[in-house]
C-alpha cells in the first residue's frame, strides 16, 4: 500500500517535471503550424526520456550514486568537465525560460510587464529552496501541477479525429515549411529529453533514500509518469491544432497568443486555467532546475548536498542555487523575450544530449556500480539510439536555428 502511494506520488511528480514552458510552447507551435503531424516527435521524445529516467533511477537505487557522481568517478575530472559545463549552460537557459514562463503568467494575470516579475519569481523560488524540504517541494509541485490536465480535458472536449491523431504517432514528411518542420521536431525532442530531468531524478532518488527494493517502483514511475507527461504535451498540441490552426493562427511566435488556446473551449475559465497551468508548471520546473544546478556542482566536486539540510550546513550547495536563480532571472528582468529563450534553449538542449547521454552507456553496464542490474539489450539499444539521435540533432540544430528559427 505504501509502495502504491509512493508510485502514484512519483508519477504525479514526474508530470510536474515533464511539463514546463518548453514542452508547452513547442507543442503549441507545432500544433498551430502542422496540425497533428508532429505528434510523433512528442511520442519519440517521451519514449527516450522513459528509458533515461528509468536508468538514472536504477543507477541511483543500486549504486547509491547520482548520475553526476557516476560521470565524475568513472570518467575522471577532465572528461566530466564537458558535460558539467554543457549542463550548467543549458540549465541556465532553461531556468531563465521557466522564470520567464512564470513571469508571463503573472503579466497575463495582472497586466504588469513580465520583466518586473523576474526577480520576485526568482526570490520566491529561492525562498522555497532555502526553507523548504525536498519532500515539500516535490509534493507541492506535483499536486498543483495536476491543473495542467486541463489541456487533456480540452483536447477530449474538442473531439479530435482520433484515427488522425494515432496516425500522426508515426513520422511523416512535411508538405510545407520543411526547415521549420524539422526545427520544431528538434525543439520538441529537446523539450522532452531534458538532461535536467533525468539528472534531477537520480538526485531525488538519493534524497528519498531509494535502495534496490525501489527498482519496481522506479520502473513504474518512469514509465507511467513520463507517459502521463507526454499525454499532456500531446493534449497541448491537439488543442493548438484544433483551436489556433482552425482560427487561422498558424504561427505562434508571440507568447500573447498562448492563452487563446483554451479560451474558445472554457471561456474566461480557459484564460484562468492557462495562466494557472503556465505559472505552476514553470514554477515547479524552475525549482527543480535551480536545485539541479546545485546538485550538479556539489556532486561533481564532492561537497555535502541535500535539500533537507539547513543552508548553513551546506554553504557551497545553497550558494550555488542562490547564484543560479539570480543569474537566470537577469535575462528576463532585462526584457529578453521568454518565448525566444525557451525555443533557443530547447534546441540547445537537444544539441547537448550526446554529452550527457553517452555516459549512460558505460555507467549502466558497469558491474561495479549496478552489479546484476545492468542494462539489458533493449535499454542499451535505446541509449545508443538516443546518442545517435543526439548527434544528428547536434549537427542540424545550428543551421536550423539560423534558417528555421523564428
Amino acid at each position, binding site marked *: 500500500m505504501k509502495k502504491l502511494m509512493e508510485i502514484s506520488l512519483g508519477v504525479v511528480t514526474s508530470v510536474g517535471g515533464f511539463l514546463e514552458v518548453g514542452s508547452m510552447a513547442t507543442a503549441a507551435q507545432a500544433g*498551430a503550424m502542422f496540425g497533428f503531424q508532429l505528434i510523433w516527435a512528442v511520442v519519440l521524445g517521451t519514449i527516450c526520456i522513459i528509458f533515461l529516467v528509468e536508468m538514472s533511477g536504477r543507477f541511483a537505487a543500486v549504486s547509491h550514486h547520482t548520475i553526476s557522481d557516476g560521470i565524475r568517478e568513472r570518467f575522471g575530472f577532465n572528461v566530466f568537465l564537458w558535460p558539467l559545463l554543457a549542463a550548467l549552460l543549458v540549465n541556465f537557459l532553461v531556468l531563465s525560460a521557466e522564470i520567464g514562463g512564470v513571469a508571463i503568467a503573472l503579466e497575463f494575470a495582472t497586466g504588469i510587464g513580465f520583466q518586473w516579475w523576474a526577480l520576485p519569481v526568482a526570490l520566491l523560488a529561492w525562498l522555497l529552496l532555502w526553507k523548504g524540504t525536498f519532500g515539500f517541494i516535490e509534493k507541492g509541485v506535483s499536486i498543483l501541477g495536476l491543473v495542467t490536465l486541463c489541456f487533456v480535458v480540452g483536447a477530449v472536449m474538442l473531439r479530435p479525429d482520433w484515427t488522425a491523431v494515432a496516425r500522426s504517432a508515426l513520422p511523416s514528411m512535411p508538405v510545407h*515549411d520543411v526547415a521549420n518542420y524539422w526545427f520544431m521536431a528538434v525543439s520538441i525532442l529537446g523539450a522532452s529529453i531534458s538532461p535536467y530531468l533525468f539528472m534531477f531524478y537520480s538526485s531525488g532518488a538519493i534524497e528519498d533514500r531509494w535502495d534496490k527494493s525501489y527498482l519496481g517502483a522506479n520502473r513504474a514511475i518512469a514509465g507511467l509518469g513520463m507517459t502521463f507527461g507526454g499525454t499532456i504535451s500531446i493534449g497541448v498540441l491537439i488543442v493548438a491544432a484544433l483551436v489556433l490552426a482552425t482560427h487561422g*493562427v498558424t504561427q505562434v511566435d*508571440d507568447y500573447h497568443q498562448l492563452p*487563446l488556446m483554451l479560451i474558445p473551449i472554457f*471561456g474566461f475559465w480557459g484564460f484562468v486555467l492557462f495562466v494557472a497551468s503556465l505559472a505552476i508548471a514553470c514554477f515547479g520546473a524552475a525549482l527543480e532546475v535551480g536545485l539541479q544546478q546545485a546538485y550538479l556542482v556539489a556532486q561533481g566536486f564532492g561537497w555535502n548536498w541535500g535539500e533537507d539540510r539547513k543552508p548553513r550546513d551546506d554553504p557551497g550547495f545553497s550558494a550555488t542555487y542562490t547564484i543560479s536563480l539570480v543569474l537566470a532571472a537577469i535575462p528576463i528582468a532585462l526584457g529578453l523575450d521568454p518565448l525566444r529563450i525557451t525555443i533557443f534553449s530547447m534546441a540547445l538542449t537537444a544539441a547537448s544530449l550526446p554529452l550527457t547521454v553517452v555516459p549512460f552507456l558505460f555507467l549502466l553496464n558497469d558491474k561495479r556500480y549496478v552489479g546484476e542490474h545492468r542494462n539489458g539489450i533493449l535499454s542499451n539499444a535505446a541509449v545508443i539510439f538516443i546518442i545517435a539521435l543526439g548527434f544528428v540533432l547536434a549537427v542540424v540544430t545550428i*543551421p536550423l536555428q539560423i*534558417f528555421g528559427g523564428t
Partner: protein
Amino acid sequence: MAHQTPDLIVRRRYLRLDCLCLLLLMLSACSSSDQIEQQSRTAASASQTVLMALDAWAAGAAPTAYTVDTLQSIGKTLADVGEQIRSAETSAPAEQASLTKAVNDLSAAVARAEAGLQADDRPGVQNAQQDLRLASRSLVTAYAKYVAPKP
C-alpha cells in the same frame, strides 16, 4: 612528425567547415526563400490572433489589460511585416503594393481597436474588428494573386 600535426588539424577543420557550408546551403534551399510569401503568412496569422483576442474580450473571456498588451505586441509585428514586404525585392510590384496596403490597413485597424479597448468603447472596437476582417480578406486575395503562377 611534430610539424605535421597542426597541418592535419587545420585540414580537418576545413573539411568540417565545408560540410557545414554544404548543409547550410541545402537548408537554405529547402526553406521557403520568398520573403514576401513568408511575411504575408505571418501577417495573416497575426491578424487572426487579433480577431481571436478581440472575440475573447467581447465575450468577457479575456481581461482588458491582456487584450491591450496582445494588440500592442501584434501591432508591432504587423508594422514590421509591412515594412519588410514594402522593401522586399520582387518581380511582381503590383501584387507587392496590394499586399503592403492590406497589411497597412490591418495595422491601422489594430491601432483603432487598441484605442477603443483603452477607452472602453465597445462600438468602436466592433467597427475596428469589422475593418480588420475586411483587411484580412483583402490580404488573402492579394496573397493568392501573388503566389498564383504568372501567365
